[in-house]
């Protein structure tokens, strides 16, 4: 209980400071009329900024927009409640954690008619973390796969399995993801286990596999995979599909003598979904629903896709895209092959710490 007190005190301090700052420049808020405000909390670089202006113009609602970098950073902010947000955009497993801790309000979908634009498979997928589709509205999705450099990987060596990341041919030529769950997913899948396993034995096997791989790994990176692969630093890299459009564009612009191709290994992969939710303590719930409905409008979703380039689950927006983007399997893999795909689940603090401890053992070897 005391811990909570501390958090509240810290949040209060932050709130007082930001209120003091906001007062200075927030005077124009009144000019937008009686439509009120909506406090939005989203990932960095995860919206076309002109969409915010368009929303303000069309509805007269003032948007107060803040950004976060990781789900883990966002969670304590919402939990402490020092700043009350109306609409937040976390990932799958984090939404599940928030639902379990009663931190989310049910969305009144009568106010969000555009939910019908979301393609059926994604509403199904959502059920793995939001079982009754009551709390979340999908925004972006993607997969994790292997990116390879065509000049460094012979045609017969083109990766088909996660285990190709253990191939000694690619010694010092492999870039791994420096994030716990993704790294364990890569080792658990070829072992035939679920990437949401809570079994200590299965995780220990995965850990040993990752330790075995470490000498071959050039570096554990997150965002830098993109630039290192474009620069020809490594033959294979584990990457999020959302980066592919940028990579293909960049490779074409630079006139490189190789291309970078994306494959999803045969064992299946992680499928992730970022969705809009409304915190239980949201002061402007109806405005948040207007905001979400606006983002689900096909023309707006397309505008955002053009900017973010992460796949959109919005059928209406998808239909508006150029055929060559629609057929780009790296960005929009075939939905019918989704049987081996899994969505990350929140496994509880105790299991999380097994993952973290094992990951440290891998990293310190």
């Amino acid at each position, binding site marked *: 209980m005391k811990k909570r007190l501390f958090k509240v005190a810290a949040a209060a301090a932050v709130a007082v400071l930001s209120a003091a700052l906001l007062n200075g420049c927030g005077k124009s808020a009144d000019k937008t009329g009686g439509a009120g405000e909506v406090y939005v909390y989203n990932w960095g670089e995860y919206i076309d900024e002109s969409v915010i202006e368009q929303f303000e113009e069309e509805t007269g609602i003032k948007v107060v927009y803040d950004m976060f970098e990781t789900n883990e*950073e966002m969670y304590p902010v919402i939990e402490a409640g020092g700043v009350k947000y109306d609409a937040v955009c976390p990932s799958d497993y984090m939404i599940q954690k928030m639902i379990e801790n009663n931190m989310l309000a049910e969305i009144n979908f009568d106010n969000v008619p555009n939910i019908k634009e979301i393609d059926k498979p994604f509403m199904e997928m959502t059920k793995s973390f939001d079982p009754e589709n009551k709390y979340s509205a999908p925004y972006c999705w993607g997969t994790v796969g292997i990116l390879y450099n065509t000049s460094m990987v012979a045609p017969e060596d083109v990766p088909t399995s996660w285990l190709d990341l253990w191939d000694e041919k690619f010694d010092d030529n492999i870039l791994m993801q*420096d994030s716990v769950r993704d790294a364990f997913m890569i080792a658990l899948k070829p072992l035939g286990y679920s990437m949401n396993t809570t079994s200590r034995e299965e995780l220990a096997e995965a850990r040993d596999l990752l330790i075995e791989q470490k000498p071959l*790994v050039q570096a554990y990176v997150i965002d830098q995979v993109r630039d290192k692969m474009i620069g020809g630093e490594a033959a294979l890299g584990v990457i999020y599909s959302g980066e592919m459009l940028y990579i293909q564009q960049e490779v074409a612009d630079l006139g490189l003598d190789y291309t970078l191709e994306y494959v999803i290994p045969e064992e299946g992969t992680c499928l992730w979904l970022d969705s809009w939710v409304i915190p239980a303590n949201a002061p402007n719930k109806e405005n948040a629903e207007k905001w979400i409905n606006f983002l689900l409008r096909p023309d707006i979703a397309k505008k955002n896709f053009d900017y973010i380039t992460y796949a959109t689950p919005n059928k209406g927006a998808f239909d508006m895209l150029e055929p060559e983007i629609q057929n780009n399997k790296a960005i929009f893999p075939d939905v019918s092959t989704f049987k081996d795909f899994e969505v990350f689940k929140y496994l509880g603090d105790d299991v999380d710490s097994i993952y973290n401890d094992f990951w440290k053992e891998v*990293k*310190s070897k």
Partner: protein
Amino acid sequence: MNKKLLSGPYTLWMIGFTIIPLALIVYYGLTDRSGAFTLANIIAITTAEHSKALWLSLGLSFVSTLICLILAYPLAMVLRAKGVGQGSFIVFIFILPMWMNFLLRTLAWQTLLEKNGVINGILTTLHLPTQNLINTPGAIVLGMVYNFLPFMVLPIYNVLVKIDDNVINAAKDLGANFTQVLLRILLPLSVPGIVSGITMVFVPALTTFVISNLLGGSKILLIGNVIEQEFTKGSNWNLGSGLSLVLMFFILISMALIAKYDKNGEGSTF
């Protein structure tokens, strides 16, 4: 009364940004997730991974500090000999890179050291074999030395310029050669600067996680990386704080050293 009023902002600053955060770290470090008192987060340093990371950090920071000292001392002596005008200009040149963001400078090293980076590019052009530079402990030491060298040069320089020329001339008059002047006059008189420089390099090198992430490819786990992971990925603030307290113990030792050797605060950098 008036004086108390004037000190208000500073008192507030210290309470808000030093004392409260420190108290929070102590609180988190000595409790578990439910808020009950425990020493487990401190004892956690004895696990194989944590103690390995700690020793590695201590080792790499020690090597970096030593290299910084070996590079900085002769430089500070040269600067002293140059006199005020020229000397300050060279010091200025030395501090110039510090105007750029620390991250950018480290990223620049990454571009230099990479497999297809600038250095290997030059080697290839000269038909020399390429070197495996990045993602090694050596790259991390290089990053530490590069980033923290000015913190070693400035305190030593500040102490050296204050040594009266007459002291050195007197030693020479009495027949001391260069080595004797260096070992028996300059070195003893510049101890405060050296100690201050050592602390200013050793402490940030010991706690860094950015340099080991960028130049070590995250393959080399330092104690800073462990703490960072606990906060950003593990959501285990208690363990992260506990390990920070252990680190703070080592930092306090170096602070105690300063207090012992630098009684007059002569070695202060700025």
